């Protein structure tokens, strides 16, 4: 069973979001890392990059395939987890902690209402 922390919000495309003030930290869910299997390479967005919700903004690669990661919210990239550059497997080991991807300064906080609650996300992944 995939872990779905109750203090986060989720995108249907399997990213998680944690909000503090006008900043959102974003990563991928435990379910997503399980499905992707062992990650060997992660490409993060550039600092300062302006994203619109739904934009493909990062790429994760397992041995077998490359998959896009989408921006769950609009805003400017203000921090990226550069440790993933050398240790992409951190996402598999700790998807909600050290395996975070990037931080966004929110352009439109109302978009938070479009995200899934932990219960709704659990329903989505358990179908």
């Amino acid at each position: 069973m995939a872990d779905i922390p109750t203090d986060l919000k989720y995108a249907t495309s399997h990213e998680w979001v944690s909000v503090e003030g006008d900043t959102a930290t974003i990563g991928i869910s435990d379910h997503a890392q399980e499905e992707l299997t062992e990650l060997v390479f992660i490409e993060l967005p550039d600092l300062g990059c302006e994203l619109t919700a739904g934009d493909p903004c990062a790429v994760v690669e397992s041995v077998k395939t490359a998959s896009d990661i989408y921006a769950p919210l609009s805003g400017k990239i203000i921090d990226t987890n550069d440790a993933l550059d050398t240790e992409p497997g951190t996402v598999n080991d700790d998807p909600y902690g050290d395996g975070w991807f990037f931080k966004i300064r929110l352009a439109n906080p109302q978009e938070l209402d479009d995200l899934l609650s932990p219960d709704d996300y659990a329903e989505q992944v358990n179908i």
Partner: protein
Amino acid sequence: MEETQLKRTPLFEIHTALGARMVEFGGWEMPVLYSGISQEHLAVRQAAGLFDISHMGEFLFDGPDSLKFLNQLLTNNLAKLESGQGQYTLLCQDNGGVIDDLYAYRLGDTRYLLVVNASRLEIDWMWIKAQRNSRHKSLQLEMTNLSGNLAAMALQGPNAAGIIAGVFPAAAELLKNQITKLEFGSATVWVSRTGYTGEDGFELVVPNGHAPALWEQLMSLGQALDLLPAGLGARDTLRTEAGYSLYGHELTSDTTPIEAALGWAVALDKPSFNGQEMLAAQKQDGVSRRCIAFKMTGKSAPPRQPYKIFSADGNGREIGEVTSGTQSPSLGCGIGLGYVESDHAKSGTGIEIEIRNRRFPAQVVKRPVFQKSS
């Protein structure tokens, strides 16, 4: 493809019990991984791995003219095989385009076994039947497609011989490319010292009903020798490191064995065979593109099919395309196979791979891409 249409091997229940992740491959529901691709890959390089390859096809030919018939269809020289020997070979159209690559074994005086790719099985069989009924009507031989009755597994890695000795002591004595018939309970099993991983190992062809017992026995013998069940994911990374072609990637009906750098499996000096004229001309005049192996030389995402390949000689021209690519679990860097213009095919040549609109440096290398001593 709908899941209900997928075929299952006799080992399907074993795979699910082991927690395998199943995927569609060549019309079959096959395990892509059990514990993880890298872990299974490294087990094969350092200890041993057991693969279900029951999806592959087996054709049997028998009769006084079976050699004559097959030697006109296949590119390698089957006449060189003694009983109990096998060789890598290709089935080509008259224009030299590859229909399939396969292993041909001489089982007895006039008996031959072909082991073909799952994805090409039906096409191969139709082609061979059509050849028989058109050009070779008068020849005396019988041919049987045994694929539906036979399962197969591959036991690969440095510990493979030690494991197989526990069930088939005679198999451990086989030399590379030899095949022998052995008894497993009431069943006949064909065991060859062959594989698709670049490691020592064996391939075993067994009647469907006896496959689960043979798998379980090998797994239990392998417990003390760090044997892991291994899926198609590791099979693909292992063959890519070894530089082996895969049909649908390096080989298609639009590529020839000469372009694919498989000239060593084309016996141009034997009597006439399908594709001979074209392949001889290509060998003599050269080809405009050639299959290469390459390694990424800087930090980059893994190369994938069909990323573009560019020259690194200053003018940055597009010179080819990646046909297989992955992160090498043994080397920890991106590796791949692909086609480039022949001027760029020499090992040591610098090239660039375009990954998501950016170009990353790589180098053409000799096969195998990875060797333990290197």
